[in-house]
């Protein structure tokens, strides 16, 4: 199917376009029914764990009576350490967001819209960091950038230049976090660029604009919602990360809110009140970021896909394409290949760094019954949760962009709330909620799946929404006018158009789930133990070489699925042509 672009940043004409979806009495009843169902599902998945966490934090039992207590709030407000943690969180997350957005946008543009050699391979390579568990990725950077022994510092030390790199700094944390998050931004922006009609850029160039000006004044504004969406996602992922700041920040006492939450939950007795207050801080930051995004996009339309056909055009960089490719290769060598080589070397070392190599750690992967069982659990949990989160995300995205249902904005806000809450705190909320429920899934695999969906469905919503708002409703209207029912329109028009975003969303949440540790930690049992838990337990007893081998396995599981999905997609595209 050939499609085309119409406008950029035009004042919205979408209300006219949505007339076909205007409510009639019967439709209102159906819509209310759907909305009620969605509210129940979302409440159970996303909202109730947060409510349970907050209730547990602010309610106390005194003399057999349950009373409201603000002691934790006072404790957080009066202690300078929490203010410092808040400041650190803002500074580091903004830094990581800017870095990730810059890298993600440039990579997406170069790899999707230009004739850089091996673009597809480079794009797949660029997504690899998200398949490495953050704490392992951070540790790889410790091995590269730690004072005294970091591989980057060793030559400089040999030359008497001291340690030029110190990963245990604000810059080090921003760098490690930023390059981990950059692939998420790249995936979102790349999906938008693939949906963009290049005729606007052609028109700009016909009018005499240079390539650079065309990119700045045409391309960037068209994909602005995706960039903004990616940036907000990067910020929100960053404020919720705990592995990287704990590993890199704690040694220099750079505490973030998530580090404080982690410490509180490791402590006895834990103050769930403090955890709840800090989680609310993060929710506030996330909500503020989302509101700012909504304000920035309000009243503008970013529709780029309409009924007219187009074939995406690749920008010819002529000789410059090799220079661009070299720069990308250099970046990927530094941020992707380097850390993976480090982890691989560690996996084949008797210990880190012995200089002696062994296959024992890797052989353990297929010899151990623990590994086999946890791989099966990880795949089951990940595939079910990723598929359910993507389907739910699609439904929410469709409701918020394609209907005028009352309360649709509320649904959107509810689903976005858990985004900013650290996984560990959210998982506790999940456990509290299901412990209170008479019919409980506590202790089963389903509680992990439900927890993952609730915590991460917003990622799917973001990815799919940014693609849906680019598609003009006239395509769906045409189908409806031609006699298609709702189902036919959805399956034969809407879904094929947003399929790249749906696949992006699935791969994205799959990549998160396959290496997710903190969501699983408070919820697993021996029967539902995942590969991440096995890695964590192995790390706790100092066996880093074995942890490195397990990380390689996680990487293979992540990359293998990504390549399989890509291959299937490619074959379908070829078949369609």
């Amino acid at each position, binding site marked *: 199917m050939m499609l085309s672009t119409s406008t950029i940043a035009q004042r919205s004409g979408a209300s006219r376009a949505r007339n076909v979806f205007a409510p009639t009495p019967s439709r209102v009843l159906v819509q209310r029914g759907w909305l009620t169902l969605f509210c129940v599902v979302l409440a159970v998945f996303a909202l109730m764990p947060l409510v349970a966490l907050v209730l547990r934090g602010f309610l106390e039992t005194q003399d057999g009576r349950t009373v409201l207590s603000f002691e934790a709030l006072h404790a957080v407000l009066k202690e300078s*350490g929490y203010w410092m943690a808040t400041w650190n969180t803002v500074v580091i997350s903004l830094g990581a967001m800017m870095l990730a957005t810059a890298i993600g946008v440039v990579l997406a543009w170069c790899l999707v819209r230009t004739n850089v050699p091996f673009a597809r391979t480079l794009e797949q390579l660029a997504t690899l960091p998200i398949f490495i568990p953050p704490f392992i990725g951070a*540790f790889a950077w*410790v*091995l590269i950038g*730690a*004072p*005294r*022994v*970091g591989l980057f510092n060793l030559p400089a030390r040999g030359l008497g230049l001291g340690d030029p790199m110190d990963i245990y700094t604000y810059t080090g944390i921003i760098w490690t976090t930023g390059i981990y998050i950059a692939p998420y931004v790249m995936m979102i922006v790349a999906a938008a660029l693939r949906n963009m009609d290049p005729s606007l850029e052609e028109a700009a160039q016909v009018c005499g604009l240079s390539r650079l000006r065309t990119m700045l004044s045409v391309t960037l504004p068209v994909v602005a919602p995706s960039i903004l969406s990616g940036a907000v996602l990067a910020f929100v992922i960053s404020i919720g990360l705990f592995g990287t700041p*704990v*590993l890199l920040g*704690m*040694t*220099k*006492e750079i*505490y973030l809110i998530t580090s*404080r939450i982690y*410490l*509180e*939950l*490791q*402590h*006895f*007795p*834990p103050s769930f009140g403090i955890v709840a207050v800090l989680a609310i801080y993060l929710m506030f930051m996330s909500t503020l970021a989302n509101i700012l995004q909504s304000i920035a996009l309000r009243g503008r339309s970013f529709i780029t896909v309409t009924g007219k056909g187009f074939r995406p055009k690749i920008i010819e960089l002529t000789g410059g394409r090799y220079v661009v490719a070299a720069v990308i290769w250099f970046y990927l060598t530094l941020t992707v290949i380097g850390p993976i080589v480090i982890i691989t070397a560690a996996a084949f070392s*008797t*210990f*880190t*760094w*012995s200089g*002696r190599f062994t296959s024992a750690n890797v052989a353990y992967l297929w010899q151990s019954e*623990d590994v086999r069982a946890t791989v099966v659990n990880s795949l089951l949990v990940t595939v079910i949760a990723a598929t359910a989160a993507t389907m739910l995300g699609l439904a929410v995205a469709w409701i918020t962009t394609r209907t005028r249902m009352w309360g649709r904005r509320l649904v959107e806000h509810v689903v976005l709330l858990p985004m900013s809450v650290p996984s560990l705190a959210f998982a506790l909320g999940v*456990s*509290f909620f299901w*412990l*209170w429920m008479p019919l*409980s899934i*506590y*202790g089963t695999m389903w509680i992990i799946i439900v927890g993952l969906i609730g915590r991460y469905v917003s990622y799917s919503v973001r990815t799919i929404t940014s693609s849906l708002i680019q598609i003009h409703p006239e395509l769906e209207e045409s189908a409806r006018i031609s006699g298609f029912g709702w189902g036919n329109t959805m399956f034969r028009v809407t879904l094929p158009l947003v399929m790249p975003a749906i696949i992006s969303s699935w791969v994205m949440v799959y990549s998160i789930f396959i290496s997710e540790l903190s969501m699983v*930690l*408070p919820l*697993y*049992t*021996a*029967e539902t133990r995942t590969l991440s838990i096995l890695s*964590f*337990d192995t*790390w*706790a*007893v*100092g*066996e*880093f*070489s074995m942890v490195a081998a397990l990380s390689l396995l996680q990487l293979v599981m992540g990359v293998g699925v990504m390549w399989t999905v890509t291959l299937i997609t490619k074959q379908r595209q070829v078949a369609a042509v």
Partner: protein
Amino acid sequence: MGMKRASFKVFQSLAVAGVLSALGGLSTAQTAFAADATLVAAAEKEGQLVVYGDPFTVPLLLKAFGAKYPKIKVTSATGDAWQIYNRFVAENAAGKPLLDVMYQAEDTVITAKTSGYLADFASDEAGSLSELGLPPGGGYVRGNGNLILFAYNHDSMANKQVPKDWTDYISPPAEWDGLGAMSNPGSSSATFATVAAIYQTFGPEKGGAILKGFRSAKGELNPSMGVMATKLQTGERPLDFFNITTAISGIIAKGAPVTMAVPVSGGVAQFNAIGLSKNAPHPNAARLLADFALGHEMQTIFAEAGVYPVRNGVTPPKGLPVLAEVKLLSLDLEKALKDRDTILNWWAASTGFSYR
């Protein structure tokens, strides 16, 4: 170099003592674990068991138990002791007690006991246990021990002085600057036991001077002993203020240039303890597992994996000092737990680190 030789001599004499004690114990209790048939029948009728605890020893225990009693389905959760304990408390508070057996750091088991969560438990195997296996207050038993000692990377410290005693940290040499690491006593049970032992043995003033000295040498705080062990083997932080045998024995066995040395004033013994939940849904299976953990077969498996058995007659782990022979700092863990806030605040004031 001198220190290395001294450490070797200590280890050598301890190893000899270990062999002798093991030979002496051969006659006492080498029979395989044989549980009461009625208990086994009752446990198999229950058919299930839930165990929470230590990530190193619990998987070993459940593997052996599962092989011996395949009719009992065991579910477990392992992890950081307090985190797991908080999970246990949350389940009880919600009126959904799931746990049958707690097998983890002793401080959490004592806390569970004093909070009224545990059934009073005296094992049928108690007569075969060493003194170390039986805590003074009773109500639970110890399942295995670990030692907390000095640990350093002998390659990185080759031309440097290494600590002989805790008091060496009061005035640390300049060459230790930026080399030391420790973990957080607020979250790590082993670290709390060590800090509490320093507090109780040396007193707040002298003990505080030791901690201040560690910090003055730019010692850093690490999230866990596992992280410290990794930095120890790479040489990034080659001088652990202390570390635990379970985190170090594995890398030493693989040839890492790491030495564990007993401080002159003594190391610290830390135990994993076995507590049975008062609300255990499967009390017979729980008791069967607890007795099995203390049997000769399981204690031997523990020793082979590098943790200290608490049963008489079991050969101690190879390459490690014999627990019963090692000089230990005095530690009254129950008292330390009563003074927990005081000790943690003292540690924070002395080191300048934050524990929460």
